[in-house]
């Protein structure tokens, strides 16, 4: 609802909007600034901004002196792996529900979503015991499976809403030309649906990367991703503020960048197309 407004009002709203935006962003900004300070400077009182000692030492140290790279790669493998596996299972399902809908397709979709309503903590113990029995505790495979199943309803829903918008005639034309079903999916549907699949991938990588319940419950050290690492990192009386900030900045940087690129698709994805 862009409307013509007076310059004075425009200046006022610009100042107000930017103040609000900076307040909301400030905690992230402060963390990034702290990550470039020396430890002494990070806890100085009063807080130092322009007089601080700046350094990149924290990043060097976090990356080289700890197991940090292992946590980082665990995060990459687990979030990408669970999302790709989820897509492989969900694409055929969403395709079928969108183009060959049955009487109970809507109910099936609602049921899938309702599995998200179940509190994770309610099934924590049986899952832990099952994973223990199967030897999946503290393994990347175990976490890939758990996070894939956690996000599967969202992946199916998102793909379903994207596929639903593809006109059926295109597919029928392909079939008339003699394309088999796998060929139809691979060569006709997938290229058209690629933007939708891409944003589904992005959102679910973000959700899996940021997941902090199953990663804490199902891992100890070997397969622990960043979310579990940061959750257990307690700074004893502020001794490691700068390093903690550097580790945290590294942990959220990939997702911040991904998220900024995909904010439009994110809204659609998260609301299952209910808000346009």
């Amino acid at each position, binding site marked *: 609802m862009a409307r013509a407004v007076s310059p004075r009002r425009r200046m006022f709203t610009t100042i107000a*909007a930017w103040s609000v935006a900076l307040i909301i962003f400030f*905690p992230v900004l402060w963390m990034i600034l702290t990550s470039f300070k020396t430890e002494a400077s990070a806890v100085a009182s009063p807080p130092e901004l322009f007089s601080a000692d700046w350094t990149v030492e924290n990043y060097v140290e976090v990356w080289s002196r700890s197991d940090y790279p292992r946590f980082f790669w665990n995060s990459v493998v687990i979030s990408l792996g669970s999302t790709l596996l989820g897509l492989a299972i969900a694409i*055929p399902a969403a395709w079928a529900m969108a183009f060959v809908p049955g009487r109970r397709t809507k109910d099936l979709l609602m049921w899938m979503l309702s599995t998200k309503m179940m*509190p994770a903590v*309610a099934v924590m113990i049986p899952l832990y015991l099952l994973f223990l029995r199967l030897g999946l505790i503290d393994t990347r495979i175990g976490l890939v499976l758990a996070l894939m*199943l956690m996000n599967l309803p969202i992946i199916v829903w998102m793909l379903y809403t994207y596929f639903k918008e593809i006109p059926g005639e295109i597919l029928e034309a392909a079939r008339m030309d003699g394309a088999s079903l796998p060929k139809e999916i691979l060569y006709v549907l997938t290229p058209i649906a690629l933007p939708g699949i891409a944003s589904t991938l992005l959102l679910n990588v973000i959700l899996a990367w940021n997941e902090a319940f199953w990663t804490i419950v199902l891992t100890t050290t070997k397969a622990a991703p960043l*979310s579990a690492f940061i959750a257990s990192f307690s700074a004893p009386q*502020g001794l490691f503020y700068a390093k903690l900030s550097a580790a945290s900045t590294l942990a959220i940087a990939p997702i911040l960048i991904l998220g900024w690129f995909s904010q439009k698709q994110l809204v659609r994805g998260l609301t299952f197309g*209910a808000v346009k």
Partner: protein
Amino acid sequence: MSTHSSRLAARIMVAPSVVLLFIWMAVPLAMTLYYSFRLYRLLSPDRTGWVGFNNYLWFFNSPEFWLALWNTLALVGGVLVVTVVLGILIALLIDQPVKGQGLLRILVIAPFFVMPPVAASIWENLFMHPQNGLFAALARGFGAQPILFLENHPMLSVIGIVSWEWLPFATLILLTSLQSLSSEQLEAAEMDGASAFNRLRHIILPHMTRAITVVILIQTIFLLGIFGEIFTTTQGGPGSASTTLPYMIFKQAIAAKDIGRAAAGGIIAVILANIVAYFLMRGIGRHLDA
């Protein structure tokens, strides 16, 4: 195009998702139900047996349970109120033509991409810490005593942290809805002399009803399970002051190693989620016939 063979193919393609989700949901739920009627403590694994509703009764007789129940509802309700009200105000503000809109929106949605343990750790260490936090420095600057956020106001602090994380989500969805509002309607109302308040109340808010419903529904699903933020900051304390139902179950399982009780708590959490979902769908579901 729904020939017999394509129907069959469709069923085969849907089957893996349905079967996997059914196993993922039904098997652990059935096991939880089973354990909830059993005596099962990891510290004394030899003593097992049926205990009827004892595990449930332990919860209902525990003062901590009623506090945890209240804390859970306070967390969900508090965050919903803060994020919806502030979300509407911020969406109205940044929907105006302002300079540098692109960068501005990126800054506003950034907290949503911060993983819960990092968000909790930023607030706990860099802001709320009684010696080194920015808030403490601010308080000292005014000659006041630093507020002990996590010690004296643990629930309010957690609500604040979680609200900060979810505010971008609410804002983004409300903003998207606001952008689909026709400006002609608003201009016509303005010409007819409708005040800004009346335009908000009779045109803008009714238009946003569906978006507000979506925000409440989706946030409630995620907020009922909030865990990482409490785990990182207060560990449910001091005492049980910030223990929510999920965290209480976690404590029973991990600290007390009492699987039977934790399982009973899990079943109670499932029932609570269903009650909340029922009232949500009854109360606001009619705005959402997709």
